[in-house]
């Protein structure tokens, strides 16, 4: 046994210290000695380690022209060290890929290749990658962890172009489909063709349901579409009645569903919390006044509010700058970069999911990882 320190037992070294490290630092620690390699490679350790990782927003990491594009996976994590004073470090770089969806430590990508456009799944921390050819005829609406089975699943909709031209491949029904990663079975039809309206909107996973905020611009005002991943059914939920238009996004705070709405003109962000889940009653929790460092709104802003490690993060992006603001409206940090088009978030994981090697074309530590 080679303990951390002659006096520090494994239960502290492994379960209190190593378990706090981000994947990059943890992988380095595996090279320290064999005991550490063994102890930090068990599934039990990695699952708890994943649970303790922060869920952080991903930035827009595209480099170069559409024809020759690379994608950096950059999360808003200052802990792992900054490349420069305000430049965040990339976790991984991929060649010719487009980032679509994220769930826990997994990313759904789409190849940029016009001739052979297909989906793929990857884990940037483990450098695992696999194409998803079984879903070629679909669009990916959402990804989620199915709780009772522990399976990662995709919510799909038949590719709209094909549906419009009535060219659904043989046996394919209109409506939602569910596909389990690593399964040999084709996507399973579950109905709900009317759910088409939400299929291409940003969504978030909250306590086993996928949520889409339809917004006041939508015909059905102020509602949230909910997909129950266990019952595999859709329903509506009341959204807060907002005072005016603005950029909104949903996130989770303190275990409760929360909505942030940014009033650009007034430079104020309202935070609404669904405190009464059963009766769908929202409460205005607080308002965040944006600091003076945020310029007057000129139509080219992006605002994202999220919660990570019990702290609310307000990100205001304009030009090539991202300002990070805390719940008191104080400027905390400035970064170079842009927010990703959708509010995608990453919670890094070194867990080796069993579905990866089961997928044909599976690679690790190879292209498209650069």
């Amino acid at each position, binding site marked *: 046994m*080679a303990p*951390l*320190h*002659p*006096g*520090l037992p494994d*239960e*502290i070294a492994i*379960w*209190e*210290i*190593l378990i*706090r*490290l*981000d*994947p*990059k*630092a943890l*992988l*380095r*620690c*595996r*090279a*320290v*000695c*064999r005991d550490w*390699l063994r102890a930090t490679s068990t599934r*039990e*350790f990695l*699952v*708890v380690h994943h*649970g*303790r990782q922060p869920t952080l927003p991903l930035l827009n990491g595209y480099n170069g022209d559409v024809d020759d594009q690379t994608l950096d996976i950059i999360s808003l994590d200052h*802990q*792992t*060290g900054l490349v420069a004073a305000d430049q965040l470090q990339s976790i*991984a770089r991929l060649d010719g890929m487009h980032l679509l969806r994220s769930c826990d430590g997994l990313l759904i990508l789409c190849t940029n290749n016009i001739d052979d456009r297909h989906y793929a799944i990857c884990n940037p921390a483990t*450098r695992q990658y696999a194409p998803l050819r079984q879903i070629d005829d679909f669009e990916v609406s959402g990804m989620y*962890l199915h*709780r*009772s*089975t*522990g399976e990662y699943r995709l919510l799909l909709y038949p590719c709209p172009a094909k549906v419009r031209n009535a060219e659904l491949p043989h046996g394919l029904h209109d409506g939602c489909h569910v596909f389990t990663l690593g399964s040999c079975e084709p996507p399973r039809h579950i109905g709900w063709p009317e759910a088409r309206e939400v299929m291409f909107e940003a969504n978030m996973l909250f*306590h*086993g349901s996928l949520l889409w905020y339809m917004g006041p611009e939508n015909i059905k005002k102020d509602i949230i579409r909910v997909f129950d991943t266990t019952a595999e059914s859709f329903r509506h939920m009341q959204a807060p009645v907002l005072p005016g238009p603005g950029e909104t996004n949903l996130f989770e*705070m*303190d*275990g*409760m569903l929360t909505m942030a709405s940014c009033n650009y003109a007034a430079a104020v962000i309202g935070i609404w919390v669904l405190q009464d*889940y059963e009766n769908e009653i929202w409460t205005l*929790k*607080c308002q965040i006044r944006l600091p003076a460092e945020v310029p007057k709104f000129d139509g080219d802003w992006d605002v994202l509010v999220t*919660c990570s*490690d*019990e*702290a*609310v993060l307000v990100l205001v992006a304009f030009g090539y700058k991202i300002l990070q603001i805390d*719940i*008191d409206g104080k400027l905390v940090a400035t970064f170079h970069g842009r927010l990703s088009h959708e509010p995608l978030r990453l919670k890094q994981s070194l867990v080796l999911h069993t579905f990866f090697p089961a997928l044909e074309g599976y690679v690790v*530590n190879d292209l498209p990882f650069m």
Partner: protein
Amino acid sequence: MDSTADPKGKRPLYQEDGLAYARAAAAAASATAAAAPDEEEAKPKPKPSSSSEEAKPEPEAEDQAEMPPLVLVAEDGVEVSISRRAARMSHMLRLLMEDSCADGPIPAPNVHSDILDLVVQYCEKHGPYYDPEASERARNPFPPFPVELTPTVSSIKPVTYVDPDPHGLKDWDKDFISLDNSTLFEVILAANYLNIEDLLDLGTTTVADMMRGKKPEEIREIFEIENDYTPEQEAELRKENAWAFED
């Protein structure tokens, strides 16, 4: 993992051995002190009867302030006293106080008095603001999946809307924990033995922060670990996760 491991993958909150040892030692010590009428300590009574001569300590802060401080005995025999309010921060001491085993000297056999002084200093500073309920919630393990969550279960601490650090404890902690590695490890061990969650978190987070960005050889040096890989094995490992070893 040992048999006392929490099924959800976290360590047990306190070490059974340490608590039993402390209880037994404290009971033996107080048996020689002024006799207390209620010596049926076999069953820990949360609400003691009021008919005893000696008022049993209740684990509330107000009462604690009036009770005499606890006396801890370090490995070098030096006695260090700690107020009852500060002692609440130690899960072990809290249980001893609840079980009324805290009246006599309490041994801390693996902890040197210098370290014990530091630990007590931390507890005295944080003690007045300490809320055992809040800490319990924060310690909630992240369960491995598959997981059943109901909307009422919260796995993160509540967000505060006022200044989350009104008493300037964060800055104080930062100064407090700037210790040399050897002392830092001793403090961690002591916090582990006495089961002071917040101090254990502070210490281990500091160590984790120290490790980030360091090369494996640097980490080995700090923690005096021998490299038991062959050069080939180490090279293979580095190649497998090449990205982690860059810069």
